[in-house]
């Protein structure tokens, strides 16, 4: 059921207004904080007000100016979009609090918070985009708005990372633009639909080419190997940016885009039939994507093992985890899709906890390398405890969030009769343990080098977000089957897409 409503427009607009206000009056610290916090809370309330109806299958729609035949700005809140919006607006509040604490004493804070708000605005825009065109518009705006945040430090390293980031993402964007135009030409529309807009009559080879284009385009932000190069270098950005943008907003926009392409542009049934024969070998679109995801899951984990820089290890872990979602989507099985979609949220909360911890430690002690973290659990026990929770979640220990994901993806692999991916998930769990647990071990069981074991936690603005996110990780696993949690939304999305 579609309902016309202004709220899908209000949600992204609020953070945009917030950004304008910060640009205008943000030199004043108090006003800057006031705008940031109040707009994030307001936005969360608006998004949440649509939540119950969305669970019942109501779709809110706002149509803006159409600028040409069949193309216009349409915001449409279906279950999947709702899921992503709830996720990003919830995390925005938490990250804003964290950023206020973290950025204390840093330069150019006005610029930082303004662009931060624009990023969140465009992320919700991506979530609510009702057609590919709108999706692309917000996707590209997100790229541009993140750039000043990546190069925030203005050091040569940061400038280089920023350049790399733009080259990767804008090239990906160009592919998406081309593919969008091609879709428009083939289907005569770019409006996302529950069961896809393309059909087999366009020719299998053309469709396959289009599919690969889209995947390569969105794959850049989704950090599918070998398109992941920008993500580890973008870690030079301040930690709140790494946390929200490189664990949630930007990368999730890529994964979200892939989900949209698979289910809403091609459609579940068409993707299943999309098989090309290449010199005698039959390649199906779904298994190609699943294969890329599997390679990334293992490859990212192996790379993470090699990193000593705390944030870089988290970055490679992100690369690996993102492909869980892609794998879940690519399995084209009900449970797989659900596992993939729900991992959008699970991964976000787990990874953001870890980034918050890395930032808190770096801010408090100046330590950025894992080899320096001896005995950090003596000094910052609560911080490290939250990290431990997130790590165990990543490994997939029940009843934490990560378990839910792995359970459903494994189920999906079995439903799709591709048991090899169950093995991939198991290996990945093992690798997760291999690169996260040594950090926990070193923190709790190795005495600090200087012998100083006095407790000195970071400021509450840094600590509280860690705790809240860790609690979320527990709650997302423990209460997964209650009616008003993300899993219910994911189920709603999955049932409409796979009908």
């Amino acid at each position, binding site marked *: 059921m579609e309902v016309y409503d202004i709220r899908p427009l209000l949600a992204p607009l609020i953070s945009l207004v917030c950004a304008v206000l910060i640009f205008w009056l943000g030199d004043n610290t108090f006003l800057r904080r006031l705008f940031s916090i109040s707009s994030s809370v307001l936005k969360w309330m608006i998004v949440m007000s649509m939540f119950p109806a969305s669970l019942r299958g109501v779709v809110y729609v706002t149509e803006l*100016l159409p600028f040409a035949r069949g193309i216009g700005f349409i915001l449409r809140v279906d279950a999947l979009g709702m899921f992503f919006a709830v996720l990003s607006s919830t995390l925005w509040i938490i990250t804003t609090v964290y950023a206020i604490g973290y950025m204390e004493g840093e330069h150019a804070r006005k610029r930082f918070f303004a662009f931060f708000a624009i990023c969140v605005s465009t992320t919700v825009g991506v979530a609510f985009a009702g057609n590919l065109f709108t999706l692309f518009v917000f996707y*590209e*705006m997100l790229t541009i708005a993140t750039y*000043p945040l990546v*190069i925030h430090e203005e050091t040569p390293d940061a400038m280089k990372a920023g350049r790399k980031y733009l080259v990767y993402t804008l090239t990906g964007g*160009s592919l998406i633009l*081309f593919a969008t135009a091609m879709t428009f*030409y083939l289907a005569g529309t770019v409006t996302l639909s529950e069961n896809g807009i393309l059909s087999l009559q366009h020719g299998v080879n053309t469709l396959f080419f289009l599919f690969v284009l889209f995947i390569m385009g969105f794959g850049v932000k989704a950090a599918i190997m070998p398109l992941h190069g920008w993500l580890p270098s973008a870690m030079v950005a301040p930690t709140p940016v790494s946390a929200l943008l490189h664990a949630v907003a930007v990368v999730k926009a890529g994964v979200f885009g892939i989900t949209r392409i698979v289910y809403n542009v091609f459609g579940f049934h068409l993707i299943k039939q999309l098989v090309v024969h290449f010199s005698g070998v039959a390649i199906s679109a779904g298994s190609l994507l699943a294969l890329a995801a599997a390679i990334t899951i293992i490859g990212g984990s192996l790379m993470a093992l090699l990193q000593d820089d705390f944030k870089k290890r988290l970055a490679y872990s992100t690369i690996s985890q993102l492909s869980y979602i892609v794998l879940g989507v690519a399995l084209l099985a009900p449970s797989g899709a659900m596992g993939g979609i729900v991992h959008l949220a699970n991964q976000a909360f787990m990874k953001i906890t870890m980034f918050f911890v890395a930032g808190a430690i770096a801010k408090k002690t100046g330590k950025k390398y894992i080899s320096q973290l001896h005995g950090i659990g003596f000094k910052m026990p609560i911080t490290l405890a939250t990290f431990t929770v997130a790590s165990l979640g990543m490994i997939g220990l029940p009843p934490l969030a990560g378990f839910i994901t792995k359970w459903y993806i494994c189920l999906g692999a079995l439903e799709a009769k591709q048991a090899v991916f169950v093995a991939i998930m198991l290996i990945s769990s093992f690798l997760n343990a291999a690169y996260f647990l040594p950090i926990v071990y070193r923190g709790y069981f190795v005495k600090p080098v200087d012998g100083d074991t006095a407790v000195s936690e970071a400021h509450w603005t840094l600590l509280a977000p860690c705790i809240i996110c860790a609690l979320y990780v527990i709650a997302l696993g423990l209460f997964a089957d209650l009616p008003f949690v993300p899993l219910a939304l994911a189920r709603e999305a999955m049932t409409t897409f796979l009908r």
Partner: protein
Amino acid sequence: MAGVSGHFPILIVVVPLVGAALTPLIGHWRRRLCMPWAALVMLFTFAMTAFLGVRLSLHGPIGYHLGSWEPPFGIEIYFDYVAALTFVIALFGFLVIIFSKRYVEKELEEAKISTYYTLILLILAGMIGFVVTGDMFNLFVFLEIISLSGYALIAIGGEKLTAMAAFKYLLVGAISSLCVLLGVAFLYSITGTLNMRDISHMLTLTDATRVASVALALFIVGFAVKAAMFPLHIWLPDAHALAPSPVSALLSGLVVKTGIVGMIRVLFNVYRINGPLNYGPVLNIMAWLAGITIILGAFFAFFQNDIKMMFAYSTISNIGYIVMGLSLASYFGIVGGLIHVFNHALIKTTLFLCAGAIIYKTGYRKLADLQGIGKKMPITMGAIVIAAVSIVGIPPTAGFICKWFIILGAIEAGKPVLAGMLLLGSLFIVAYYVKIINAAFFREPVHEITEVDEAPASMLIPIVILAIGCLLMGVFAYAPLAFIRPAVTGFLR
């Protein structure tokens, strides 16, 4: 049509022409009145074009017969959907004149001020005439008015380098004018008429298609020079970069478009290139050259240090977009090309005026000297950022619209490789605009430009209006599309 308003189609040409002729007199009397006079003339012209634009959208194209002689015997002014561009010319002309006030006072000797405004009005009159005329010979005459006043405006600063640039432009421009004249002569020899619509009709009857093809080639070469298409672009960077900034804005934003409008008139109005007659692979050659133009323009821009040089090369690559769109000759392609005629004018005028404001304030024009300028002139640099984001084609700004339509057009025409070239070019373009933004906002200043503050209001107001336009024309693209769609439907009929 009754009363004076019936004569608007000719008055929009005559008023600025007469205004130009009177400017030296006014300058002789009171030099300070030149600028208000020129602004007033342009504002008046603008009002008339606005009136005609509304009329056009309500009642369709307006034909006006000079001296009431019926065409093909008399000269015809034909205010069709393409001629709606006059509205833009008059508006931007007006803004540039406002901007010029302080700039000219500082950069030019006093004696030259009245000459300057005379030439500006003259070049604007030439462009308006060029766009609205329905007569081939008039097309050539107006082209010459534009070119001659253009040479003079480039050289008006009087330095050695600008004189060289103007001379280079003069040489190449003279050849292009000759090509066009020769083309007109050829067409006259086989059709016996100069009225565009009449020629178009006669061409379907004549069997001298070889002569017609040669004439077409001459036109394309002639206008390609004016539009600075590869490999005929060499004159443009110097001319556009070394002219006074408001003049650069006019040249880059509007004057190069005369080449484009000329191509549109010849290809679609006269030759009806999509019609039954076969003129060989003209469009194909143009499309590929356009692709090369896009990439090379962007590539060279990357290696420039002078911001105005960068903008000039960026014009070349954007002209490539437009020509590519037109020569795809598919519905979406032409729509994309036409809309970029307008959007590029908007964006490039903004950029050159901003460059002008910066040069006016600091005296520097090299990127290395301008580091950290964003903190001193936030509004001007903010406008540059908006225009840069727009020209790179990041949605939802103005520059994105053409990219979308041209890519669509390329797919529609079955030439996706061209779309690939366009995307590659636009990625190069990102590279050098990012250079500008980085230098302005994210690097420490090298010079002690402490006393620099924002440009004066007479400069800022046009800049801000144009920059807002860059932002909004992406979202409100249906406004220009309302004129472009019927135009394209007419071309493809």
